[in-house]
């Protein structure tokens, strides 16, 4: 039996092109089939000049295609040349509609053109984008409708309707609004599907009037120059020159299943072997469809899959990296054993081996002897740990380190602080010789967001964990079963009410992310009287005392809480006196502390002001008491002098209430917006909580755009200047502080990088701005200290 070719590669993204070039270089008969009219459709759709990183840096590149950090344009051009030089047999604008097993082995690929092509093996590299959803209304075929936006600059002065309130729609609308009249057509009234930073940006643009917003709208018809919508109060006609519909994509799962591949769930990645072979022998899957999201490993897979098909048993490119981690920690066994062990962990069991490999490249293995501290209470979390072997113990009570809650192989820990974005609440020590896997923050945040099974695994242990940590370490799973069943994870938007004053419900809430405010009526208006950050609980008083709610509790920022049903919890209390005693004891302590609640009108208004300024998602805020501040700006000068001549704080800017001033300076957010989209992963959180930008910043400006507080600036560094004595004695230079004169700014010739406050983490004596304040006006405080700050303030 002869086939049209030995290898048919479907999809010409990074993985597909790399496979095609490898096949061509090896002289194997092949074809590379691509639906779109060009190579690299996904990268083609990146915004123009987008900077593409070649990460992970430590991973060697083994593709025939060159790949280094470059712009979108360079990348596309390089790979087109690469494919042409290798004389890849390329068929563009050809869709594969079905792949079936051939009668005599091999595969038959049905093409959109109606032809059939046979191949001995097939490499699927079609990515996960799937097919863009299209509008299904009369007029959808009109030329004014389009489903993607390559270059927003192309359109000027048009009236454009953007349909779809997801990230793609929002990004398009924002980009177009600079030069066009843009209307966002939204089926709802806000932007729940979008990344928080995008939602904030579009809401701000709507508020400013830069973008019109049609809410609760349903598209009914499209006419030339006009979009007809059903809205709340009837039908409306929206005049427009262009309609951009970004209404998601159908996942390729149906196509994959039609090829005979079984998927465990519609969102799961198909299972592949070490050689990227799927359950269907001869059908290989590589690239993002196999769970690989980063370009460089995709290129490697393209190379490797061809070698595997040719019978060459290469080790994967990341094998030595993972092996090195094993060797470092003197773990006997192979990478395959480690992969298998990680896959057995409840947290990661839903991931494919390729996904686990990607995690392992960034993860760390630790060997710990009994008594060694693994995580320390009070430090900020940058990772989550899983126990591969051995046992660890958590100290539920800081003052009684001997009392331990034990966790065994398979358990994970450290996720509470990662979710809350705050300090670790408990110290954990190894209690037996242990092997631990530490997965970094960024990977974990992505996994929690994108893999429902991981979220579920975390939620499943959450209730028990909170109850044991806060109240009764000795509780076992059987005792907790009813409470766990009654518990639910609830999300609150800023301002949403968890508990209403006077209500008679009696649930308890564990705040696991975000923060809440306790408020009461004052002067006929609801004002904030206390602030409770994540890692705490509220609502037990009504339950224990069987009284109506004594105060209103609202989410200060987007907040996630675990709600435990009052009835179930009361039953548990009745059954376990130990628990009841502890809960009551904690309440007594709390009531004692609550006396610190503010009572004076001026004080209440101040805390109310601070919470409304959004400082509640901060971990550390610069606060200036303006009744002490003599406006000498020594804080700014100190900042510039200790940070390469560029001040990262603006003393004068920022809101003020009475004499309390919040200058424009980094608040070191619980969940830093700046970290969300940093291509070189240069923004980190130090153990003491400082969010800082490392030297590998590429100056792309994403963090500056994402920061809602405007505390990051793109700046080139000024040249070194004469020392302080040279200025004091001989008048050389402009003296301390940042010189922002036009001449000085012009002298800054280097590349711009993002600069922000790092809370002087490298200066042993603490933040220079605070230390340089001569009058005691400047302090840095965590939100939970605000109440003390305000109460002690001179009135």
């Amino acid at each position: 039996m002869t086939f049209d070719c030995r290898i048919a590669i479907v999809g010409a993204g990074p993985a597909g092109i790399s496979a095609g070039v490898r096949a061509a270089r090896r002289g194997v008969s092949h074809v590379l089939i691509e639906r779109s009219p060009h190579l690299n459709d996904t990268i083609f759709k990146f915004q123009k000049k987008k900077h593409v990183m070649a990460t992970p840096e430590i991973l060697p590149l083994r593709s025939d295609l060159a790949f280094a950090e470059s712009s979108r344009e360079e990348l596309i051009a390089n790979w087109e040349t690469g494919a042409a030089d290798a004389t890849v047999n390329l068929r563009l604008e050809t869709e594969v509609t079905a792949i079936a097993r051939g009668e005599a082995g091999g595969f038959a690929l049905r093409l959109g053109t109606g032809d059939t092509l046979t191949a001995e093996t097939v490499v699927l590299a079609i990515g996960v984008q799937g097919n863009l959803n299209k509008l299904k209304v009369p007029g959808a075929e009109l030329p004014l409708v389009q489903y993607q936006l390559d270059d927003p600059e192309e359109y000027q002065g048009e009236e454009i309707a953007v349909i779809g309130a997801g990230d793609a729609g929002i990004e398009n609308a924002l980009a177009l609004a600079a030069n066009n009249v843009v209307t966002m057509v939204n089926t709802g009234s806000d932007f729940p599907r979008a990344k928080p930073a995008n939602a904030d940006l579009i809401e701000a643009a709507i508020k400013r009037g830069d973008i019109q917003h049609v809410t609760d709208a349903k598209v009914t018809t499209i006419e030339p120059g006009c979009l007809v919508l059903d809205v709340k109060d009837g039908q409306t006609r929206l005049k427009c020159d262009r309609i951009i519909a970004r209404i998601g994509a159908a996942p390729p799962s149906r196509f994959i299943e039609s090829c005979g591949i079984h998927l465990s769930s519609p969102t799961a990645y198909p299972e592949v072997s070490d050689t990227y072979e799927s359950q269907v022998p001869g059908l290989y899957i590589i690239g993002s469809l196999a769970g690989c999201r980063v370009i460089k490993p995709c290129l490697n897979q393209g190379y490797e899959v061809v070698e595997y098909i040719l019978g060459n048993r290469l080790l994967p490119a990341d094998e030595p990296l993972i092996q090195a981690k094993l060797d470092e920690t003197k773990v006997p066994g192979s990478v395959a054993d480690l992969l298998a062990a990680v896959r057995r962990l409840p947290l990661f069991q839903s991931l494919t081996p390729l996904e686990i490999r990607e995690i392992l490249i960034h993860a760390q293995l630790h060997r710990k002897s009994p008594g060694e501290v693994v995580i320390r209470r009070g430090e900020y979390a940058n990772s989550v740990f899983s126990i591969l072997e051995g046992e660890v113990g958590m100290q539920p009570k800081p003052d009684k380190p001997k009392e331990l809650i034990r966790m065994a192989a398979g358990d994970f820990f450290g996720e509470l602080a990662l979710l809350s974005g705050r300090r670790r609440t408990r110290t954990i020590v190894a209690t037996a010789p242990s092997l631990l896997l530490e997965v970094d923050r960024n990977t974990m945040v992505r996994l929690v967001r994108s893999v429902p099974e991981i979220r579920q695994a975390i939620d499943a242990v959450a209730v028990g964990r909170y109850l044991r940590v806060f109240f009764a370490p000795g509780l076992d799973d059987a005792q907790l079963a009813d409470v766990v069943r009654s518990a639910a994870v609830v999300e609150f938007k800023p301002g949403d009410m968890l508990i209403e004053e006077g209500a008679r419900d009696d649930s308890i809430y564990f705040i696991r992310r975000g923060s809440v405010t306790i408020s009461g009526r004052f002067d006929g208006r609801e004002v904030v009287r206390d602030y409770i950050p994540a890692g705490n609980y509220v609502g037990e008083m009504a339950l224990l005392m069987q009284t109506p709610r004594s105060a209103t509790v609202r989410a200060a920022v987007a907040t996630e809480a675990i709600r435990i049903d009052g009835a179930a919890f009361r039953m548990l209390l009745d059954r376990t006196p130990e628990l009841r005693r502890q809960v009551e004891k904690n309440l007594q302590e709390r009531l004692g502390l609550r006396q610190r609640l503010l009572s004076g009108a001026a004080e209440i208004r101040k805390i109310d002001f601070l919470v409304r300024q959004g400082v509640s998602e901060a971990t550390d805020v610069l606060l200036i008491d303006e009744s002490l501040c003599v406006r000498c700006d020594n804080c700014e000068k100190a900042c510039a002098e200790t940070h390469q001549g560029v001040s990262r704080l603006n003393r004068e800017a920022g809101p003020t209430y009475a004499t309390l001033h919040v200058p424009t300076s980094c608040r070191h957010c619980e969940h830093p917006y700046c970290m969300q989209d940093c291509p070189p992963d240069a923004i980190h959180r130090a153990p003491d909580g400082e969010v800082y930008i490392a030297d590998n910043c590429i100056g792309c400006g994403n963090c500056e755009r994402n920061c809602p507080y405007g505390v990051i600036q793109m700046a080139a560094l000024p040249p070194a200047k004469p020392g302080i004595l040279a200025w004091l004695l001989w008048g050389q230079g402009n003296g301390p502080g940042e010189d922002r004169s036009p001449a000085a700014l012009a002298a800054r010739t280097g590349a711009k990088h993002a600069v922000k406050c790092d809370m002087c983490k490298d200066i042993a004596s603490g933040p220079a701005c605070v230390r340089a304040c001569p009058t005691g006006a400047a302090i840095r405080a965590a939100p939970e200290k605000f109440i003390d700050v305000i109460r002690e303030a001179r009135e």
Partner: protein
Amino acid sequence: MSLGDRADAAAGSVTRADRHESFLVYARFRFLKIAMAAMAAAVLLYAADKPDGGRFGGTWAGWTLGIVAALLIVWLTWFGYRKRSYRKPEANLVAWLSAHVYLGLALLVIATLHTGFYFGWNIHTLAYVLMCLVIASGAFGVFCYVRYPRRMTENRRELTLRQMLGRIASFDEELHKAALGVADQPAAVIRDAIEKTVVGGSLRQQLLGHYPGCATAVALTYFGRADIAASVAQAAEIRKIRMLLEEKALLLARARRDISFKAMLEVWLYIHVPLTFALLAALLAHIVAVLYLW
């Protein structure tokens, strides 16, 4: 944070300055107490020494007080350098300022006792007088530091000076448009109000916040006259101009007050610092004179 941390916080187990505390009350008046002790010691020393020829700088007590005072002067001057040494790991600047203020005041007593109340028309008394002036200007600085910051905030009401000036400029734009609809003479008055209004001005103006003959005030008086409108249609126009001028005048007063406060917070340094250097020179001359020429 958990309940446990809250208890920690309430117990005050914090390492960093995390509450607002003025340099005057710093560390429960630690430096005031030290200064009082130093002054008391100086008085005791002065009282204990009863030389035959009367008390003056040349007795053993005089020498002791003189050396202490001179070292104190050098150390107090060092503050100007310390204030700008941002990487120093030692105490916060607020501690230094607290010490600077209270020990500076103590210096007055120590140095006065050093003189033994011998004064004359010579370099020695010049050094003493300069020192008194430096201390007096510093005391005035403390007074300003206590008095003006709060007033400044109250006056600003969330507007920065730049924002105030921006708003004044937009009132000027409105006035400029309004001037097109009135006769030549009132238009000239408006033009003056736009072009000749001074916000900062001379040092005297800045300090006193007093601007005699301010073009905006003149215009306001002019448009406040009842007989200025020639017709009913114009009356509305005039009313609008008057309103704009009133708002501008209010904002102008705020901006000028802000500048005046800022000037008060800074001006004393222009006396304090140069006099300090004059004092150092005189002190050196005094010491040289005493050592070699006495």
